């Protein structure tokens, strides 16, 4: 097999060193964990629940996200219907919302189906926790994320708009 003898190896080694030498002057290859600001605008990682324009908790407890989640990690407990002070209409409420990030596959389906844009994704990656509970996003944590972390570009209606822009043309 190794019948290739001769001084060929000098040229081959030189060639390898040329490639290596060229890369010596290029920018670094490895980077650390990049901060959220340098990520693409669409980067999605963790979740937040948001308030609507009237300052109410936007989630109406419709459980659509719970049903569509492929990994069954969302649990929504719906509350009684309440009269909204801002609009004067009755709307559903949500008393508890738990999202277990441990099995979430970041598929964005829950965001896409939400009819009132209540659940959004944030661009900051979830950091590892010291216990399993650290990775379970409770309602308090989700509402805190609304202010603490950078929300991403999209929402249920933004995704719809992107996928079905026909409505805009007809109106």
């Amino acid at each position, binding site marked *: *097999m*190794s019948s*290739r003898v001769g001084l*060929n*190896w000098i040229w*081959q080694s030189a*060639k*390898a060193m040329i*490639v*290596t030498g060229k*890369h010596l002057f290029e920018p670094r*290859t*490895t980077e650390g964990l990049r901060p959220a600001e340098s*990520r*693409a*605008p*669409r*980067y*999605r990682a963790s979740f937040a629940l948001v308030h609507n324009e009237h300052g109410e908790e936007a989630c109406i407890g419709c459980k*659509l996200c719970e*049903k*569509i989640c*492929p990994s069954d990690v969302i649990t929504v407990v719906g509350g009684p219907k309440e009269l909204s002070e801002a609009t004067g209409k009755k709307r559903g409420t949500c008393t508890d919302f738990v999202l277990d990030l441990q099995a979430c*596959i*970041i*598929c*964005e*389906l829950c965001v*896409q*189906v939400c009819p009132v844009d209540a659940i959004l*994704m944030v661009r900051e990656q979830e950091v590892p926790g010291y216990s399993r509970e650290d990775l379970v996003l409770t309602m308090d944590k989700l509402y805190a994320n609304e202010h603490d972390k950078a929300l*991403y570009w*999209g929402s249920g209606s933004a*995704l*719809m708009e*992107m*996928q*079905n*822009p*026909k409505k805009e043309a007809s109106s």
Partner: protein
Amino acid sequence: MTEFPPRVDPHFDIEEYDPEADLMALNMGPQHPSTHGVMRIKLFLDGETIVKAVPYPGYLHRGVEKLCEKLTYVQITPIFDKHDYVAPMTNEQAINLAFEKLLGLEVPLRARVLRTILAELQRIASHLLWLGTFTLDIGGTIGGGASMMMYTFREREMILDLFEALTGCRFHYNTHCPGGNRHDVPEGWETVVKAVLDAIEPRFDEYEALCDNDIFLVRTEGIGVLPPDLALELGQTGPVLRASGVDHDLRRDAPYHAYDLVDVRVAVDDGCDSLARYKVRVAEMRESVRLVRLLLPMLPQGPIVGSKPIKSLIQFKAAAGQVYVGMETPRGELGTYLIGGGDQRGAAPYRCKIRPPSLHAMAALPYLLPGHFLSDVVTVLGSLDPIMGEVDR
């Protein structure tokens, strides 16, 4: 006509082997760094030479096919990202092609061209990962081994950045849905793609320079010779088949997506060995770059989803019927066989069977390994490029 070594019988009884010989049974894996996942090969060694090899897959079984019977059409796409974790984009496309055929959905041209571009970019990314790990596997001898991996991962990172800009995820994108794509191209994406291709293309020359490196040639030339008749018998597809001299590529022979709009040049090599498989993959990367360049200006305006966008769990209901769709992923023909749920199961399929190209590549191992040295196992395994997640599903 090249002479091929006589075919080995992978099932021969090891008890019948020369009783004088100093036989040793050695388990390679399940946690071996070069097995691309978790897989065990039981090797019978006579000295340093392999006499018999028995692969044992199954360590990464996650029950994707069973899961598909429980989930609805809408929910399956993100699950499918997971079985070939090196090329998730093409997995998604494969299952959505099957859905579209079963449900009778039209895909708009914009989505079709976009899917083609994504598939070709994914092919480059997947082959780059293969090249990096392959050279790492076969030796700390090739420029330190690890430096090649650094180079290829740097290029792959650029492509993953493109995917991140488009879909928001570096991996496991969930960017396809039955009837189209979920994410439209962001502004200025095409220019970034062109810039990335310009940066990547000259680097292929550096990868091809490996072809006249003695160490690399000695490690790959004549190692793992897979004759064309055996390749066809074992159901090989993709680069493994094309490196055995069989000119077969679904992109050209049975076009899906927008491949009928372009002229795909298929890379074929009749070396049949590990070196040929390396050559075919590098040539395929070049071809992919050319195809993306051709397709980018073709991206028409218009909608990206043919049906209604996903809004509910049971949006798509299929009658009972069965379809098979084959698609050329970076590893070969990924076939999806789907039986519709009919009236009882509504929006969930009755059965979903995946035909993974990696499983068939694995089937070649017992034929290829006997007669080689122990150190050649990683070369053969690496050149076949099986992804264990796909083998076991």
